[in-house]
């Protein structure tokens, strides 16, 4: 077990990629804090599933875009599980629309959760990692940060923002034994992509060289690798998990 005695916090872990990341980190031996905002039931199910496989997990509710809630949530995790070794900034939302009609609040909410949320949670977790000279921060971006996607200027901007954020933070903390990396999933089977209109789904799928959507587990495996000591010399990089879709 690669991650035995490690503590991980995964934001947005009740569903989709975050859920798979929480489960795979636990399978590798980490104790996992399963963050959620609204989906309490699904978050508890993730915790129970981890407990069933003999792992340790807690649900922790906070909105990543709310600084005070973040501080409280991180404290709660550290009291229950110990100092956080692995942070996965996964919480993300979409509010799609063509730019010319995009509302202020659609822009702001997406940037606020996807980008500012990663900043707030990272800032709350980092002092502990710096003190202990160890940390693994993995930010979940998206293929659209690189390829672009009509109707997703806000989402793509937030996900591209995470890349610059990660690269810069990687330089700041490199001498502290803390690595910061990005995983950029392509088209993955989740509630988020299930919400796409059938035509858009088909169009996207037809562009995937591997001819199929990815699974959340396939993304989670990349995250577990970056969280492990096997990735100890990797920082500031982007690992694309996209079946060849660009």
């Amino acid at each position, binding site marked *: 077990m690669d991650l035995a005695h490690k503590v991980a916090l995964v934001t947005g872990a009740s569903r989709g990629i975050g859920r798979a990341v929480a489960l795979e980190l636990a399978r590798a031996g980490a104790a996992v804090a399963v963050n959620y905002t609204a989906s309490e039931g699904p978050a508890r199910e993730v915790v129970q599933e981890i407990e069933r496989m003999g792992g340790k997990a807690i649900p922790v509710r906070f909105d990543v875009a709310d600084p005070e809630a973040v501080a409280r949530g991180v404290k709660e995790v550290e009291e229950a599980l110990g100092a956080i070794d692995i942070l996965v900034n996964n919480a993300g939302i979409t509010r799609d629309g063509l730019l010319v009609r995009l509302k202020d609040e659609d822009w702001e909410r997406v940037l606020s959760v996807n980008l500012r949320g990663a900043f707030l949670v990272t800032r709350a977790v980092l*002092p502990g990692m*710096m*003190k202990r000279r160890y940390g693994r921060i993995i930010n979940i971006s998206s293929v659209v940060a690189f390829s672009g996607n009509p109707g997703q200027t806000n989402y793509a901007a937030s996900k591209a923002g995470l890349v610059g954020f990660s690269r810069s933070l990687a330089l*700041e*903390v490199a*001498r*502290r034994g803390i690595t910061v990396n990005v995983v950029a999933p392509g088209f993955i089977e989740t509630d988020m992509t299930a919400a796409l209109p059938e035509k858009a789904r088909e169009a996207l799928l037809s562009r995937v060289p591997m001819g199929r959507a990815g699974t959340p587990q396939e993304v989670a495996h990349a995250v577990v690798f970056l969280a492990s000591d096997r990735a100890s010399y990797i920082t500031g990089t982007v690992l694309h998990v996209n079946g060849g879709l660009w």
Partner: protein
Amino acid sequence: MSVEEKVIKIIAEKLNVSEDQVKPEASFVDDLGADSLDLVELVMAMEEEFGMEISDEEAEKLRTVGDVLNFVRERVKE
């Protein structure tokens, strides 16, 4: 442990230098090899140890071990 001893211990620990090197005239950057994040860590450690807040403006003026000793002595007295 006196305030001075605590400060010296924290500096030695954070900058990974021996306590003998932590002399009042020693500059963090030039003599003790600190980078900007080391300085931030040092400030955070002082805040935690002495239960005080140090503003960015105040922190910028703390260039030597002596600066920190004076600063903490003043603040702890208050």
